[in-house]
């Protein structure tokens, strides 16, 4: 086997098998720390052995067996574990668990453990990226612009809490699963959004994070194929990510939706996203419960990505979808986005009146001032528009967005 083929096999095994190996070990040994370290060691062993012996026919099986051996070695070295406990773990069946359905998949237990509501949001994100995504601590630290030791500490502390507070490695009970799943989706969406428009740092878009979020979204859909919101979130991420290439100009400036070169959009992702949205529309029509926020956001993105141009967008449909979203979640940010759509349907004056009502709550949010600046420009209030652009630029953390806002401001006629 050639060197590049082995490298590709290891890369593929990392993407496809990491979460499964960690999850299987976590179930068997009841210890996330041990599961993570033994899995990492198994991949190091693969890096040494596969180039020499060739990649195994069943990489997942090889990694699981190797990681299990590494875990048992570790337990043997740790004298503090009482002998009986240790023996019980070593005697445990070597065969993989016999899954009777997706709810029995160890990876789903891992998802719910990493996203446990007793953990701080930043800890959930870090654990999910490390244990499910297989990102290194250094990669996660870089993604969230914190020092590597800080991130390592965050992950260690979260794992220690899971252990000390006895967070069970299981899927929540039927009564809790809905709320707990919403928490899981929030973690994935946060990772996606940080990549979609980085809130700080030199990189405007972080494809590593959007790709990882989509990968997690696909995993969740595979595990919970009949959950509308799981499908909705995946569709939303695909349709947003489809526009990636058109979202930043070659000079590093953010390009807003109505100015994007739509021929640069990724058709494959759009088709996949549209298929998922249609699947949900059919399911709701067939009597399933009405769509939640991710399905509505996916539908809004489906309408945008179905239009040949901004002008040809079905704005009444977009506003109608936002109305349903506001009914579900009347938060100021949702109302801001609805107002931006209203500007296209009913004109900037009406939208401006709606946006001004949000001033008190959104005064510290750059997108509020950016939207307001644009509307003020369109109604000919140049002076106020300039002041709003200034505020938006001051508050914006993303360099491409700052560049876009600065150009817009400088184009205002004095």
């Amino acid at each position, binding site marked *: 086997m050639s060197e590049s083929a082995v490298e590709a096999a290891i890369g593929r095994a990392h993407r496809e098998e990491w979460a499964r190996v960690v999850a299987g070990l976590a179930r068997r040994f009841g210890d996330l720390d041990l599961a993570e370290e033994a899995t990492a060691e198994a991949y190091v062993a693969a890096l040494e052995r596969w180039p020499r012996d060739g990649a195994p026919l069943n990489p997942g099986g090889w990694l699981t067996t190797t990681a299990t051996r590494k875990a048992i070695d570790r337990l043997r070295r740790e*004298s*503090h*574990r*009482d002998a009986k*406990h240790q023996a019980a773990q070593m005697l445990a069946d070597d065969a993989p668990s016999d899954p009777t359905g997706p709810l029995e998949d160890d990876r789903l237990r891992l998802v719910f453990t990493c996203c*446990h509501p*007793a953990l701080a949001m930043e800890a959930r994100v870090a654990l999910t990226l490390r244990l499910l995504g297989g990102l290194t601590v250094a990669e996660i630290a870089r993604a969230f612009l914190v020092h590597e030791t800080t991130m390592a500490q965050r992950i260690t502390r979260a794992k220690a809490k899971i*252990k*000390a*507070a*006895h*967070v*069970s490695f299981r899927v*929540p*009970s039927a009564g*809790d699963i809905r709320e707990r799943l919403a928490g899981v989706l929030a973690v994935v969406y946060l990772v996606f959004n940080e990549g979609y428009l980085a809130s700080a740092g030199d990189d405007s878009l972080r494809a590593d994070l959007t790709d990882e979020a989509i990968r997690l979204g696909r995993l969740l859909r595979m595990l919970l194929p009949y959950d509308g919101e799981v499908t909705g979130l995946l569709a939303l991420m695909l349709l947003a990510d489809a526009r990636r290439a058109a979202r930043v100009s070659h000079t590093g400036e953010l390009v807003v939706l109505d100015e994007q070169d739509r021929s640069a959009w990724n058709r494959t992702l759009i088709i996949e996203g549209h298929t998922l949205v249609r699947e949900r529309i059919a399911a709701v029509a067939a009597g399933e419960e009405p769509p939640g926020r991710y399905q509505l956001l996916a539908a809004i993105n489906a309408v945008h990505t179905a239009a040949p141009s901004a002008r040809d967008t079905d704005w009444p449909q977009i506003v109608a979808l936002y109305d349903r979203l506001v009914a579900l979640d009347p938060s100021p940010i949702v109302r801001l986005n609805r107002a931006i759509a209203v500007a296209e349907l009913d004109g900037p004056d009406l939208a401006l009146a709606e946006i001004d009502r949000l001033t008190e709550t959104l005064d510290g949010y750059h997108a509020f001032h950016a939207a307001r600046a644009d509307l003020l420009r369109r109604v000919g209030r140049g002076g106020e528009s300039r002041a709003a652009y200034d505020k938006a630029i001051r508050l914006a953390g993303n360099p491409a967005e700052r560049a876009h806002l600065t150009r817009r401001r400088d184009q205002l006629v004095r």
Partner: protein
Amino acid sequence: MARYMLSVFGPAERNEFGDYPSKEAMLEAFADTGAFNEMLESAGHFVFADGLEPATTATTVDGQGERPVFTDGPYLEAKEHLGGFWVIEAADLDEVLALAVQGSKACRGKVEVRPFQSAESFQALLES
């Protein structure tokens, strides 16, 4: 089964009805808390529970020096102090959190859930 402490905090200075706005509110909270305690007992979770006198009645003791030092008042200076607690046993964090929700409702206060050290974690500490 794992053991947890559920702590309830209240203002350092209490009024004539403890931490409650009126006598009726106080009696209602006591009744609800009593019912919650009975449920804990019958479901096998209960280990111990009690309420504390106000933090102003506390004495802080430092016996590390040659002569003991006694200080009037609680160890931590704060606007709110531990007012009462439960010690309970539960299968895991999810179970104890669900119980804490009921306890919080019953006693009309926020509840802090904290695990006790287990034999295993204590052993690990000894051998670290």
